[in-house]
């Protein structure tokens, strides 16, 4: 309900609010005003046509405080697939946890700090970009998030620095998350020719319930820089998750994004990028795995603003039970964006009669010299491939499981970071192939 958020906002303001510079306070104020005006979207809104947010809109979520009892490092290890040399900031119930974080040993020229610290150490950078990339004018959830701007991570990679190991922003919710909400806000800035991999993980720890994560991440990729961004959404099965990644790319920059979504009762992931310079590339891949009553929605938007850029997009999904998937992929080619080369594909495998997918790949082209294709398939397992496996002696049931796994593995293969690729492959294998 809107009112509960408005009351929450009043309460924070009355108590003086958390420490933040003046510009951030006024940003929050305009955001709450905008949120009040917009309200929660209904399915009449084109961007939310296939996803009803009523379960979120009708509940009251309290803004979460840090947990009272400790989360342990052992609980977090599996979420990093056992990797121990990642640069990690941990947030529990949306609140930065210094003890669990391990951002030490960063190379020179790399900053990885919680937002409140960034206000002190990187004031100009934060003021320059925060709220400027992910604007909330028409976006309810971004407005809501910005109104409660308080915690999150700031990543800054200075020019020509390549960070060898991934940066992990790990957001977990524990049992004390109850019916609360976390509204983290992250900022990633890569200066020219910088290169980094940033992983955003969202996970529910054992016993976490129907909490609501609403996250916004803004990323600025400078001239010739390369950002690899992996989003791993493994929230608790009763949770609600809305996450937006909004990227702005400069000349000759590259974005390689992967969104893995398997958790939450209701989730919406927005991946947006604007190719604002000549010669950019954007690769947006994703995999969603749904079961039971889950609703998993992805919306992607690639804005080709300048010429000679390419974009590649492959989203795949496997839906079982009564799961409902949504893929809405938009590619806009602006009038100046000649020689745009775009390809977008969405393939979904339905394992049960009740599972469903709404897929809507959209191309809007306003330039005349471009090469763009898009397509979507929805289907069941390929009978020819099934016969091929069976003709080699593989039992029908095993053949089905193997092809289901293979459908997912095909897109997981695109993940360059070995720990994540192999970790997700192993998890998917366990999920779809019974071990004899």
């Amino acid at each position, binding site marked *: 309900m809107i009112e509960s958020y408005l009351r929450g906002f009043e309460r924070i303001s009355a108590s003086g609010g958390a420490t933040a510079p003046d510009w951030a306070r006024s940003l929050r104020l305009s955001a709450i005003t905008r949120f009040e005006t917009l309200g929660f979207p209904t399915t009449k809104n084109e961007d939310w046509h296939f996803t009803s947010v009523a379960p979120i809109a009708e509940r009251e979520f309290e803004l979460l405080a840090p947990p009272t009892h400790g989360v342990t490092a052992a609980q977090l290890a599996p979420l990093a697939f056992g990797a121990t040399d990642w640069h990690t900031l941990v947030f529990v119930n949306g609140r930065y946890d210094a003890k669990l974080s391990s951002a030490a040993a960063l190379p020179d020229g790399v900053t990885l700090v919680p937002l409140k610290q960034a206000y002190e150490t990187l004031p100009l950078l934060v003021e320059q970009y925060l709220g400027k990339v992910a604007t909330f004018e028409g976006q309810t959830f971004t407005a809501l998030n910005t109104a409660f701007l308080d915690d999150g991570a700031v990543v800054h990679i200075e020019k020509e620095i390549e960070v060898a190991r991934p940066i992990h922003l790990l957001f977990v919710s524990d049992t004390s998350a109850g019916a609360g909400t976390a509204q983290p806000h992250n900022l990633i800035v890569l200066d020219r020719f910088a290169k980094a991999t940033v992983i955003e993980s969202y996970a529910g720890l054992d016993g976490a319930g129907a909490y609501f994560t609403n996250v916004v991440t803004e990323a600025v990729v400078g001239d010739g820089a390369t950002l690899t961004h992996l989003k791993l959404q493994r929230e608790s099965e009763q949770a609600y998750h809305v996450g937006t990644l909004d990227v702005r790319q400069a000349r000759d920059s590259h974005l390689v994004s992967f969104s893995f979504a398997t958790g939450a009762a209701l989730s919406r992931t927005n991946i947006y990028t604007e190719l604002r310079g000549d010669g950019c590339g954007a690769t947006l891949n994703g995999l969603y795995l749904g079961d039971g009553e889950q609703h998993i929605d992805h919306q992607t938007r690639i804005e080709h603003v300048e010429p000679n850029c390419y974009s590649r997009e492959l989203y795949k999904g496997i839906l079982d039970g009564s799961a409902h998937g949504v893929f809405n992929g938009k590619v806009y080619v602006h009038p100046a964006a000649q020689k745009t080369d775009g390809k977008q594909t969405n393939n979904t495998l339905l394992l049960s009669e009740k599972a469903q997918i709404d897929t809507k790949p959209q191309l809007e082209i306003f330039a005349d010299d471009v090469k763009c294709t898009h397509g979507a398939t929805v289907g069941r397992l390929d*009978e020819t*491939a099934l016969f*091929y496996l*069976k003709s*080699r*002696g593989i039992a029908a049931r095993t053949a089905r499981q193997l092809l289901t796994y293979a459908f997912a593995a*095909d897109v997981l293969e695109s993940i360059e970071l070995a720990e994540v690729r192999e970790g997700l492959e192993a998890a998917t294998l366990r999920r779809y192939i019974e071990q004899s």
Partner: protein
Amino acid sequence: MLEIKNLHASAGDREILRGIDLTVNAGEVHAVMGPNGSGKSTLAQVLAGHPAYEVTEGSVTYEGQDLLSLDPEIRAQQGIFLAFQYPVEIPGVSNAYFMRAAYNEIRKARGEEEIDPISFADLMDEKMKLVEMDSDMLSRSVNTGFSGGEKKRNEILQMAVLEPKLAVLDETDSGLDIDALRIVAHGVNSLKRPDNATIVVTHYQRLLNYIVPDYVHVLAGGRIVRSGGKDLALELEAKGYDWLLEEAVA
């Protein structure tokens, strides 16, 4: 080993096989030739149990059992192998995983222990030499992005690993250049034993210069219109199929 009697099969409403009779004994190589649309690929697929074809009449007995009542995987476990004319691409499953899974299923069916990955790698090393394949083919997804020749060699590799009793090669020579053809033929010849048999389905006589058949059968209009020794293939090469088709009609 295999006895086909009056076999009729259809795809949808279309009858393709109209009464095939064929007997194959252990140690024999049979060539099945015929023009396009004669039903020779259908015969190969029916033997493997392809679900697109319905057998409407006749019987197939394999090692004393009713072959047609068995599911495709059971047929494979009992020693039948079909080398596909168009091997299927399976992105996301590595060749190594696929072959080990198949090999273990077949071993299980024979009451043998499953093989561990390391012993299997040794076995693959040996078998891959036979078809002159590089070991990097094992880590690639099954047939995905393989050239035509690589796909066919991969079929023969599977045959070498699974060691079938009855191998059916469905136009394995189509689309192969002469070097690939030699490699494939060498593989097939090396696997020949007194206790197994091979049916070679082909459009061209060319393959039979390398895999010498004991018997040649000509299929036309879903029936075997002529059977003979290996010389029949040479006669077909010289005279084409038309004279046989005319005789069959007459």
